[in-house]
């Protein structure tokens, strides 16, 4: 019953807002190029359904590839850091610099280096840079958080570094890694959108480009439809990763147990 309310309450608010929006647009006769009514957006969505879905597929592909690349690179870097303090001291500052430099500023450079004939690769690289840091930070912290006594125990039994990593450090890091992944999932989408914006006309085929294009043509209803699709995608990515987190931690971690 409480669950049902959790779902119904936000839906009721959405319905109320949409009805108000529809009514307000009709009442004050707001021009469609300023604010289209929800019904007009729905119509634009159904008219452009195929092209919007193609654009979504393009953006989603970049997002997922970047997310996977960020997970693999972030975890691998964190593992390397956990094995050598020197390596961590040498390279962590550069990871931070990469993180704090606005990606919009680096993106044109990457596009030039990679080349417009390989635009997809360039987009994936840009989105990967955006999504990389939370994975690295989460995994690095997690790998360091292993119980000292458990580490001592592995030493007592003559375990190799690889055994300690696999049996103790990685499982300890899992909740931290998953938390980083939840942030990174959303960032990969943002990175993909930013990359498309920077890549600009003629080359990009994703949702972000549809937004730019619709804006230029004053097809504000289509713009809204693309925007709604982007927001929905972000929510779905977050929900999928939350589900993965719950499933992996449900037997042992406090966060998953209190949530279920």
């Amino acid at each position: 019953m409480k669950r049902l309310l959790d779902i119904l309450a936000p839906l009721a608010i959405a319905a109320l807002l949409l009805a108000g929006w529809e009514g307000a647009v009709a009442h004050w006769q707001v021009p469609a190029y300023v604010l289209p009514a929800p019904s007009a957006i729905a119509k634009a969505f159904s008219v452009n359904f195929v092209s919007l879905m193609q654009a979504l597929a393009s953006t989603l592909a970049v997002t997922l590839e970047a997310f996977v690349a960020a997970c693999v690179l972030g975890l691998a870097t964190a593992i390397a850091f956990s094995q050598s303090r020197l390596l961590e001291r040498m390279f962590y500052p550069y990871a931070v610099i990469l993180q704090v430099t606005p990606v919009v500023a680096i993106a044109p450079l990457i596009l030039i280096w990679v080349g417009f004939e390989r635009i997809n690769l360039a987009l994936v690289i840009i989105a990967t840079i955006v999504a990389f840091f939370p994975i690295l930070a989460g995994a690095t912290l997690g790998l360091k958080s292993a119980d000292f006594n458990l580490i001592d125990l592995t030493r007592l039994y003559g375990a190799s570094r690889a055994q300690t990593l696999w049996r103790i450090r990685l499982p300890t890091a899992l909740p931290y890694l998953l938390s980083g992944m939840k942030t990174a999932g959303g960032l990969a989408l943002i990175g993909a959108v930013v990359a498309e914006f920077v890549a600009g006309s003629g080359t990009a085929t994703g949702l972000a480009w549809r937004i730019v294009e619709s804006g230029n043509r004053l097809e504000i209803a289509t713009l809204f439809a693309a925007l709604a699709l982007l927001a929905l995608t972000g929510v779905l990515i977050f929900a999928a990763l939350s589900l993965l987190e719950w499933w992996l931690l449900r037997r042992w971690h406090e966060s998953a147990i209190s949530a279920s």
Partner: protein
Amino acid sequence: MITLQGAAKRFANGVQALEDLSFTVKRGEFVSLLGPSGCGKSTALRLVAGLLAPDAGAVRYMGGKPEIGFVFQDHTLMPWADALTNARLPLDLKKLPRREGDRRAAAALARVGLAGFERAFPRELSGGMKMRVSIARALAAQPQLLLLDEPFAALDEITRNALGDDLLKLWREDGLTVLFVTHSVSESSYLAGRVLVMTPRPGRIAADIALPATRDSRLAPATIEAQRLISGALHTAIAT
């Protein structure tokens, strides 16, 4: 079985934990290392285990380094693994085949009274049961020397007494050698065959008290007499 000779240990923060610490534990003994908090008991235990190296002096094992089981004050279990997997950890690290590991880990769990709890996760177990899993893990590798670092300090008295009796039984049945770090006089007086009383930091041995073997209960006159002896020695050790 093991001898510490003039062992000293200073930590990176400048604290001199141990100075000229010497003692011997013979095969089959149940020795309790007793001292006030912060006297370096745990450090001494880590030296014996080979987890720390002494700055001066030596740790010698007679007849080669024995197989060692270590039980910490906290249960130190892996929260992501069930009781069987936790007890199997030493065997996994020694790359025993999985089936053999499972068999031995299950046997170790059964010995500490946890048959039927193989699939339970640590968070589903009580404090005493978690400590039992921890002891089963130490037993799984069939150690000759069992080192315990205030293993019952975080438990209530009833659980503590039950675990103490179980430990005595395991010691008798397996012919283990046990070195038991504690700050509890009553625990030492009942469990140990010999009590090493340590001074406050830097820790040295202040007294070496052999106790009669005939203490069949916690309230036996011999146990009470042992408590009186140990308390006296501890008092002198702290006062000097």
